[in-house]
Structure formats: C-alpha cells, structure tokens
C-alpha cells in the first residue's frame, strides 16, 4: 500500500512548492539575470573580463554562453539566496503554519516527510538552475545566434555538443546546491521561524565564500561546501575536466550525509509543539 501511494506526498510537495508566489518570483528573478546580461552585452561593444571564468568574452560568439555566464554570475549569491529561502522553509515553514502536526498525524512519518522535503528542495535547485541556463540559451540564441563554440581550452565544438555541456553544467550546479540544501534542511528543523532559518542558511553560504577568499585559511578551503562551486567552468574545457565534477560530488555527498543525518536526528526526536 505504502509503495503505491508513496510518490503521492512527493508530488503534493512539488505542487505546493511551485504554487507559491514567493517561489515563482524567485524563478522570475533568476530568469531575469540572463536576459539582463544578454541585453547589456548586446548594447555594449567590448565586454571586459572580470572575476571568475572568462565567459563573458564568449557570449558574442555563441548564444549558449549567455546561460552559462548568467549561471556563473548567480552562483555566489542569487542561487544560494533562492535555495536558502526554499530549504529554510521546509520544516520551519510547516511548523509556523501548524500544518506539520497534521502531516505527522496523517501520518506522513517523520523520516519520510524529511526525505520528501529534501528531495523536493533538490528538484527546486534543478529547476532554478535550468531556468537560468534555458532562458539564457533562448535569449542568447535570439540575440547572438548559435554558431560553433570556441571553448576555454581553445577547441571548437558543435552547437549540439554545447547543449550537452549546458545540461552538464546545470547538473553540476544542482549537485553544488544539494549539499547547501542539506544545511538548510537541518537549520529548518531547529526553529519554528522560517525567516530565521532562511537567513541562517543563506548566511552559511556567504560565510563559507568569505572564508574561501581568505588565503590564510587555505587549509580550510577544501572542506568548504562552496569550494568547488565555480569549478563548473571546467566542464567547458576539452576534454572535460571530470575531476572537478567528481570532487564536487564527493564533497557535496559528504555535506548531504552529515547535515542529512543531523536533520534526521533532530527531526525524528523533537517534540512538535507548533
């Protein structure tokens, strides 16, 4: 019986997430980033290289790069903010509405509810990332066309190959955010105030990136969940530098395990008084 209707609550969770104006406006803001970027690049003649991977220079060569550049722009702040809002809301939001007690009495089961909450947050990560990439690709296509792509390594690949790489990059960023989402899930189990959980979650991402930018803390860097976030650009080399993909997977997997376990230990034993 339970196996038949198990996806039921998951689907309901997904539907609930995407029915909230708050979450839809987050996606709208994320979609705005590549649009803004493409229009700005189109209107100015020679974009200058800034920090991060030199993607902006490539934008005019191929529309696909709009999405990828926008993704890199969103990684340090916009994406963590978006995911922090959703992940921080998971348990704390239900607690503040009081709906958590009715879900548990239904009975959703505490572990099952936690797992579903986490998985649906990861789905939101994927949708958020794809929103940037897909909107970027479409706008780029419209404004710059889709010729063969010159990679960071100097090689040229076809548009089809570029699409595959765009999907890979979206996957990479989703994995990057999955570890962060686990932190948000844990924070969400320790409070009944969703805004507090959201703020605390976003703060961890900012703090980790600040720590990551201090050279004296280099011993700490490999342990920061943000450490591999910008290595997404390695997917634009030829051949693809798979090592960073694997390293990132391992790092995020560690965070998912640790914070998932903490969230589980906390949520399965706490008194639900909301």
């Amino acid at each position, binding site marked *: 019986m339970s196996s038949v*209707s198990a996806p039921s609550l998951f689907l309901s969770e997904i539907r609930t997430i995407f029915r909230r104006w708050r979450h839809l406006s987050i996606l709208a803001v994320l979609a705005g980033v590549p649009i803004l970027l493409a229009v700005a690049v189109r209107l100015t003649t020679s974009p200058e290289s800034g920090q991060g991977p030199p993607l902006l220079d490539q934008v005019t060569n191929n529309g696909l790069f709009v999405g990828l550049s926008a993704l890199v722009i969103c990684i340090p702040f916009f994406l963590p903010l978006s995911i922090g809002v959703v992940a921080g809301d998971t348990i704390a939001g239900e607690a503040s*509405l009081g709906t958590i007690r009715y879900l548990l*009495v239904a009975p*959703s089961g505490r572990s099952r509810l936690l797992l579903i909450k986490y998985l649906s947050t990861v789905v939101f990560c994927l949708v958020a990332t794809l929103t940037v990439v897909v909107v970027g690709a479409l706008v780029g296509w419209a404004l710059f066309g889709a010729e063969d792509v010159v990679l960071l390594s100097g090689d040229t690949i076809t548009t089809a190959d570029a699409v595959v790489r765009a999907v890979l990059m979206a996957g990479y960023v989703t994995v990057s955010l999955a570890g962060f989402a686990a932190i948000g899930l844990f924070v969400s189990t320790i409070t009944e105030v969703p805004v507090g959980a959201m703020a605390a979650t976003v703060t961890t991402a900012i703090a980790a990136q600040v720590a990551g930018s201090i050279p004296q803390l280099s011993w700490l860097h490999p342990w920061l969940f943000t450490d591999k976030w910008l290595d997404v650009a390695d997917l634009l080399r030829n051949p693809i530098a798979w090592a960073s993909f694997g390293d990132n997977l391992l790092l995020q997997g560690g965070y998912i395990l640790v914070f998932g376990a903490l969230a589980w230990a906390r949520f399965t034993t706490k008194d639900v008084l909301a």
Partner: protein
Amino acid sequence: MTDLAIHTRSLTKRYGSQTAVNAIDLAVPTGAVYGFLGPNGSGKTTTIRVLLGLAGATSGDAELLGSAMPRGARAVLPRVGALVEGPAFYPFLSGTANLARLDAANPGAPTRTRRTRIRTALERVGLSNAANKRVKAYSLGMKQRLGLAAALLMPRDLLVLDEPTNGLDPQGTREVRGLIRGLAGDGATIFVSSHLLAEIEQVCTHVGVMSAGRLVAQGTLASLGGEGGRVRVDTPDARGAAAVLSGLGLGDPRVEADVVHVTTERLGSATDGGVAAEDIVAALVAAGVRVRGFTVEHASLEDRFVELTGEGFDVVR
C-alpha cells in the same frame, strides 16, 4: 485491555521544570464518547500531543487502539482522525487542495478514491460551497470545519478532537454535536476535549476531568454527576417535611414558608448507601406530609467540574 481505545499508564510529560501532564491513567472504552474536560492550561492538549506521537512522554506509556505510541504510529494513525490545537492549513491553497495534501500524506489512503472522499468530507461539514476558495479567505469557523473534514477523510476507528467547537457559531456547535453523535453511531470512539462543559455534557457517555496536569476524575457521565443534588418539597406542612428529610439523613433542611430545600450528598439508590427519590416521597407521605410538589435536582456536571477544578478564573499555572 483491547476494549480500551485509549489507555495510558502513569503518563507524564515535563517541559523543563514544569510538569504539564502528571501521571495520568486514561481509560477510554471502545465505542465511548469521552469528554476530556479541564480549564485552560490543565494539560489537555499536551496529553493529546503525546497520545498522537507529536511529543514524547517523559515517563509512563500510552496505547492507542491497542498499539503502543509512538512506536505504533504508522500502523495506528491512519485509523485515527485528529484535530489538534485548532485548525492549520496552507492559506494559499483551496480547501480541496489542502485536504488533498493531507490525504496524500497518509500512506493508507487510496489515491483512486481521493477526489470522492474529499467531496464527501466537505459535504459532511457543510463546506461544499467554499471548497475551491483559498483558505486565506476562510473564517475561523470555516477553518474549524475544514479541520473536521480532514479528520473525516477516511473511515476512522478513533477520533481525537481537541476543542472542535472553538470559533463556531451556535448552529455550527450544534452541527458538530450532531456529527459526533453520528460518528459514534457508526461505532467510532470519540475523544473530545473542551473547556466548555455544556457543549460536551449532551453528547458524552464518559468524562475525564483534568486539573493542573492531573486527571482528577474519570468515569461514566452518570457516575461523575455523583450523589450530590438538591431536594425541594412544596408543602403546607413545612416543618413536618423538614423533620422527615433530616430523619432520612439528607442533611440540614432550610424552611421558607411553604417550601423546604435540602442540599445533600446522599442521593442515589439504597444499594449504594444513598437515598432514592421515591423513598423520600414514600417517607413524606407516610409521615402525613401533604406534598404539593417534589423536585430532585442532581448536581450538574458543571457544579461537579467547578468542585473538581476550583472556582478561580486565574490560570492555575
């Protein structure tokens, strides 16, 4: 043992230094409508939270429909409908969508019949016309009804209703009483908490009274009403009547012109040491007292309630 739908042994719940529920032994017989009474802050909701596995007991144990809680939650809770500390819903979803979500959370609820069951539940609580409105636009009474609808989504063996009439208008309150009678008629056990006695008195078969975390009384409604009450005799022979009443050991009668009153703790039947009303009349007549009117008022549950929980308006703790 299994003929108790809810059974707790020495159930205790402490929050820090405060003992919210103090060693209570609830015994709710299967098929009963059990009124769980007590003033605000007496531990009713905490007890319900522990019963439903939302909070863990500090000591003692609780059984729901024969399974230990919270261990048996997965197996037992699908058979239990509950309203805990007021309704809670997603304000941005419609009544129907809210119920669909709660139903989806129950692994024992078949997806196939969901739509029909939701419609029936909404009909039962009179919300059909507001089914597609967002809960944001619901009044407190409507939310309360929606909460009841959620408890009725599946056929239940036990309903735990915490203050189900809170926020309802008089008609709504009547309907809830009707609903409780109907559910009890279908064979469900109903555990209903309230601080409003009048609402409960009319539908309950059993009553438990909480005061400051302790269960101070428990039993059938009749047994809790007790032997206390008032006897009033209208008679021109007031003095003779007073003599008979005190002779029966009913206490110290008060005489006012043609009326004699006595307040007593000994009403009941001769078998349990009390004095039956018919025996009082026989004694009066035998003594030649001309009886024009005779009234026996058993102490109301409210008198008993106040007696057990204290008069004060202040929250005890």
